[in-house]
């Protein structure tokens, strides 16, 4: 087996008494799309910053392309494209100037960058906006420009921190499409997200993080298979009656989770379970059968929901 692109062993980061990342191990292979799934404050962004050589780990070992970020920060950053959680585009410059100057920060030649710009603008679907000031762009456009900008140095690894947070559904789908294309080109993607659909769409493999620890690690499909049933039945009885129904329903399902507004019943066949419940004369206000998702995996692992 070839050496992994990124290897972390016992990676730890503390701020005073607070343990942000608590001794995690993982490997990322070349060309892989690797995800960090977890709620806010799980330690995903901190892990990303350590990998990005903009944060110094407290203990553990980390190698990226065989180098230690603590020793070779600038050399590692030269391999990375960074898309932070909050866009930090240069609001005083135009779209193409943003790409140009970012390339110059890496020391790339003007002729090289100027050849790249049309290609990157096409990728980001911003050809029309070439001379527009960044301030005037929509949220989705800004995020696509941030990604295009990070690609100017032809990075081996693209790091995306919560890439679609705050975007509308249409803008999210456009962005996912662009990221798929990068993956096809062999770029290694590191993605943090607290959206299970995003993790399912984009990641070959992911780690589920909570409170700085890794709860599970596998492909999205395998995680669902291991930690959840095939289907889920969601029922609502109104806020006053949910509690009393739990005890009646518990024997019927493989597993049951009670959320503030609804009850989740886990089963291989959701429709069948709903019929069983109806046969007992129980009629929820609303009911919904769906496939299990990473949200259910997370709930199972931590007893909490991803978005709280």
């Amino acid at each position, binding site marked *: 087996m070839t050496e992994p692109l990124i290897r972390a062993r016992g990676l730890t980061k503390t701020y005073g008494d607070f343990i942000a990342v608590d001794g995690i191990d993982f490997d990322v292979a070349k060309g892989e799309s690797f995800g960090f799934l977890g709620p806010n404050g799980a330690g995903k962004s901190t892990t990303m910053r350590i990998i990005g050589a903009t944060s110094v780990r407290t203990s553990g070992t980390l190698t990226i392309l065989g180098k230690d970020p603590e020793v070779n920060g600038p050399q590692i950053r*030269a391999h990375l494209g960074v898309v932070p959680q909050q866009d930090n585009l240069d609001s005083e410059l135009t779209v193409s100037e943003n790409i140009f100057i*970012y390339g110059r920060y*890496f020391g790339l030649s003007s002729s090289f960058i100027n050849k790249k710009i049309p290609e990157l603008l096409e990728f980001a679907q911003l050809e029309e906006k070439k001379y527009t000031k960044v301030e005037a762009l929509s949220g989705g456009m800004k995020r696509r420009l941030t990604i295009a900008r990070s690609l100017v*140095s032809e990075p081996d690894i693209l790091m995306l921190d919560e890439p679609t947070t705050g975007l509308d559904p249409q803008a999210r789908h456009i962005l996912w499409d662009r990221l798929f294309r990068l993956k096809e080109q062999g770029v290694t993607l590191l993605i943090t997200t607290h959206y299970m659909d995003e993790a399912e769409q984009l990641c070959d493999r992911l780690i589920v993080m909570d409170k700085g620890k890794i709860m599970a690690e596998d492909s999205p499909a395998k995680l669902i298979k291991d930690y959840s049933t095939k289907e889920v039945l969601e029922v609502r009885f109104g806020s006053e009656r949910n509690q009393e129904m739990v005890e009646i329903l518990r024997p019927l399902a493989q597993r049951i989770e009670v959320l503030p507004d609804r009850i989740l019943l886990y089963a291989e066949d959701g429709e069948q379970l709903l019929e069983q419940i109806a046969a007992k004369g129980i009629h929820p206000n609303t009911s919904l059968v769906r496939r299990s998702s990473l949200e259910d995996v997370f709930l199972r692992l931590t007893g909490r929901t991803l978005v709280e």
Partner: protein
Amino acid sequence: MTSDAVALSERRQGKFGDKYFAGRPQQVLLRNWLTFKSSAWIAVVSGFFEPVLYLLSFGYGIGELVGNISTSTGNISYAAYIAPGLLATSAMNGAMIDSTWNVFFKLNESRLYKAMLATSLGPLDVALGEIAWALMRGGLYATAFTLVLAGLGLVTSWWALLAVPAAIIVAFGFASFGMAITSYMKSHHQMNFFEIFLLPMFLFSGAFYPLTVFPGWAQAIIKALPLGQGIELVTKAMAGDFGIHLLVNVTYFIVMICVGLYFTTKRLNALFMR
């Protein structure tokens, strides 16, 4: 295959300070030039008018009430008396605007430095680039102001040309010191610190009247403050008065520059390497 960016960064590997310095402060300068070209020129150019307005208003208006001032070099008009002080003050103000408010904005609001430091650029590149920009601005103001002085007949010798390098040294000191302090500021309310410090320094700097109106101990304090030193430096340089004093003034600013650069780099590194 390795990209150009990687090749470049590996070339610097192992050289002195490679973790903090990529040898590319000119790219930060280039970034400022791009914004200047598109719109920031309004703010930059307008800064030139400030000392000129003071010169016209004070020099001629108050000058008429005051009459001539007797200095060590003879009896001169009030306008000629305040000119070097205004030049040093405008060098200070220009450098301070760039290195305090603008830096604060880029540090905390627009997160520009975060973007820069996510590339293979280092904190010293950023600090040097920003300070160089402030200096170019300061140098431009100093040159323009000296030309205005010459046009108004307030310049008496060729030594006045030295006003430009003197003003640049003053600007350099304030820019690197200002940036260092700004990098420690957390809220824009703390930025008021600069005004609380700068206003009295300006009013009591001796730019507008001879310090002899104050008691000896107050004069000593004023002369020890950066603007007092700056005014002394510019006044002496413009008069061609070279002596041990000038050397003390220059050394003072070199110390300010070094201390400022050291803390700026250190702080930027700490901020973005948490």
